[in-house]
């Protein structure tokens, strides 16, 4: 689906990405993790061709997107659904109109709009909110609009840049459940996040970035592995507790 081959990107003297290489296969769910300023957003911007790398290749769907002409960039973006931390919904359009916009962009026959919009709004649970404006929605609902907008054109890849960054943990879980559902339906998801709780909870492939370099790449964490880890942690806790008891006994 997507492959980074020795990609580097600098902003002046600041090295945002240094010789990054990784592959994401069709249908995978990948977390790009790392602290703020690690290069996560730069990586997503490179996939969207918002910026160009200084060197290296980015292959999407079998084609090197670095060499695309400016006229071809919109066609690349039409194949990718994007979800942003700050939602980026159009404030003067209703929920339905926001979701209709990508259909108009891609050139889908307007007769098909209603059915497709209804389908994705039902999927994200906004089928009762179609005529509301963004100012009338909560943060979680806005993120769902953003997700519905990304999904409506049936893209091959969903990019999400800190989609839970502005949400409380309960709402974030709701949004993450949706991403998981979408992924199970066969969509590839690349999500930049630094939310440790989400990374731990959703057990996906993880590419860790620090100071523009990949510092770790973990395959899908199996439930057994997590259970093992949890058991290890419990045992460690018990070990730490034993001396305390001993001390108490002595004291008594």
């Amino acid at each position, binding site marked *: 689906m997507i492959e980074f081959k020795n990609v580097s990107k600098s902003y002046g003297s600041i090295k945002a990405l240094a010789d990054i290489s990784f592959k994401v296969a069709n249908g995978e769910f990948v977390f790009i993790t790392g602290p703020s300023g690690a290069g996560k957003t730069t990586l997503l911007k490179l996939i*969207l061709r918002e910026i160009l790398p200084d060197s290296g290749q980015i292959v999407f769907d079998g084609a090197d997107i670095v060499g695309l002409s400016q006229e071809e960039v919109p066609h690349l*973006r*039409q194949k*990718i659904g994007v979800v942003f931390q700050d939602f*980026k919904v*159009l404030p*003067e359009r209703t929920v339905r109109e926001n979701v209709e916009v990508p259909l108009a*962009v891609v050139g889908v026959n307007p007769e098909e709009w209603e059915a497709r919009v209804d389908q994705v709004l039902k999927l994200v649970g906004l089928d009762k909110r179609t005529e509301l404006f963004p100012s009338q929605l909560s943060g979680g609902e806005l993120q769902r609009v953003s997700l519905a907008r990304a999904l409506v054109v049936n893209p091959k890849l969903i990019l999400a840049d800190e989609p839970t960054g502005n949400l409380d943990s309960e709402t974030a879980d709701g949004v993450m459940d949706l991403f998981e559902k979408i992924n199970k339906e066969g969509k590839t998801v690349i999500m930049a996040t630094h939310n440790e709780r989400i990374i731990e909870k959703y057990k996906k492939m993880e590419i860790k970035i620090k100071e523009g370099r990949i510092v770790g790449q973990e395959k899908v964490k199996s439930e057994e592995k997590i259970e093992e880890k949890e058991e290890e942690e419990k045992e460690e806790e018990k070990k730490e507790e034993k001396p305390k008891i001993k001390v108490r006994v002595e004291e008594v």
Partner: protein
Amino acid sequence: MNIHLNTAVGYIKRSPFQALAALFVLALTFFVGTHLAALVYSSGNILRYFETRPQIIAFLKDEITPEQVSALQNKLTSDERIKDVKYVSKEEALEIYKQATSDNPLLSELVSPTIFPASLEFSVSDLAFAQEAIDEVKKEGIVDQVGFTASLGGEKTLQDVVGRLKTISWYLRVGGAFFVAILAGTSLLVLLVITGMRITTRKGEIEILDLIGATPKFIRSPIILEALIYSSVGTFVGWLLAFLMWLYATPNIVSYFGDIPALPKETLNFVLLFLIILGGELIIGVGLAFAGSFFAVSRARRNK
């Protein structure tokens, strides 16, 4: 409704004063433009009338014979510079006089055909030949005097009449075109400013559309469409106001100019003339809208 049209209408509804300013300036431009176009048409027609139909009249002496008249008539007819040669007898001259003084029958009762000279009336194929034709006819023995029918106010020769009309027409065209050019320039600037403001206020929206894969054409479409709505509505309103004024004034204009076809006398032709003017103005209006919005969009892209 088409998504671009819907967006453009939404833009207009959200900033009604901006829309009114644009419409007012454009309507004013095309109001003046319509007047100018109608005036240029009328002056052109009047000028053409005098240029192509200079009626020269050779008044004949009383004692001439029909053979002499016929000989001169043939001579004039065979001259390539001269056309429409017509003999007007004394009786016919009296009839013309009676018609001209029909509002005062006393004047015609006091005269008899004998006091009117017979004449040969003719026109020239080109105004440049008029003076030499007059000079040549004057030398004919049977000709008493030579005159011309066109006179606007004390002109001594046909060239004076046409020269004066040409001057009026030139001032009308150049002055009017200059004035309309200034108004069109103002309209272009207003469209440019409004489109520029629209791009600035919609920067976030443009950014989102860009990220979800909208082509530059898709992003530009509602902005250009908005400018097109301003220009077409402004053009139509300006034209309509001017058209109504001309419609009201036409009966007086037509009766003032009489035979001179300053404006079409038939309603259908009159409406057709103004529809042609509207068509031309809509093309100019669309051109202004495209130019204004394209300048603004390309400027915004340069500053991106």
